[in-house]
């Protein structure tokens, strides 16, 4: 079990636990968290990039790594663009890769509307950067085996995406 930081040895250890004798329990083998700041476009994508690298180091299948990386990137960009800042948590156990993106606001007034393809509240200057297609959350859902959003206006949003390790 490993928490936080970017410690290569710990990732190796987690990798060993992961590929070793299959555990019947879904004990986490790796947990990392990444802070994501609002409007920090210079750093935006670093968490997803790191997550992709870690999963690759764990020896996971390329298509799974890609799905997780895409989901993480969409989650990260939503934190940068739409939230007041938050955190992405990566958790790997023997059965699945789980990504949790949580923020402290502003929350979504209507989650099912936010999930609709093409729906976006991104302002023009964000659209000029190539975001705001209203495809991020649907993309995340497509990439995941289970997907959920909990949101409350004034409190914040938690998006959880899990990908089964076949």
């Amino acid at each position, binding site marked *: 079990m490993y928490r936080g930081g970017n410690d290569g040895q710990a990732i190796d250890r987690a990798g060993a636990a992961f590929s070793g004798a299959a555990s019947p329990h879904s004990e986490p083998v790796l947990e990392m968290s990444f802070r994501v700041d609002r409007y920090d476009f210079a750093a935006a994508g670093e968490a997803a990039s790191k997550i992709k690298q870690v999963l690759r180091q764990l020896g996971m299948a390329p298509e799974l790594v890609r799905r997780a990386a895409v989901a993480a990137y969409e989650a990260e960009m939503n934190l940068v663009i739409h939230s007041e800042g938050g955190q992405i948590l990566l958790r790997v156990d023997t059965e699945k890769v789980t990504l949790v993106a949580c923020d402290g606001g502003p929350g979504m007034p209507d989650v099912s509307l936010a999930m609709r393809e093409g729906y976006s509240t991104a302002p023009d200057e964000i659209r000029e*950067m190539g*975001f705001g297609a209203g495809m991020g959350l649907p993309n995340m859902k497509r990439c995941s085996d289970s997907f959920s959003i909990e949101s409350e206006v004034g409190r914040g949003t938690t998006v959880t995406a899990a990908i089964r390790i076949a």
Partner: protein
Amino acid sequence: MKLADIRELIGAEVLVGEDKLSTVEIEMACGSDLISDVLAFCHDKTLLCTGLVSAQVVRTAEIAGLSTIIFVRGKRPDESVIEMGKAAGIPMLATDLPMFETCGLLYGAGVGGICLGADGSRRGDVG
């Protein structure tokens, strides 16, 4: 199609990856100015034609495992973005041609598009 031939075909300037021109082989391409569309529909190893020149394009290419980026309409990314491309090992070309003509030339030369299912899902996904 070799990247070197693509460079020739669209008269592109090579910003990153001069050394890869004769080794990188392109089978599929897509043209988009929307990041989420690229992430949703592009297979890995795809060549991306785009008018976006921000750092996020390189990130997107990295995340989606894209093969090459061609900047269209005479757009040139900043030096910092070119450096990111170098670090990520992603060839980057720049052409003065608009998006439609760039894509048309590539398509006419036999580069394939990405196939979408009726529901917009990707088909023939590479593993």
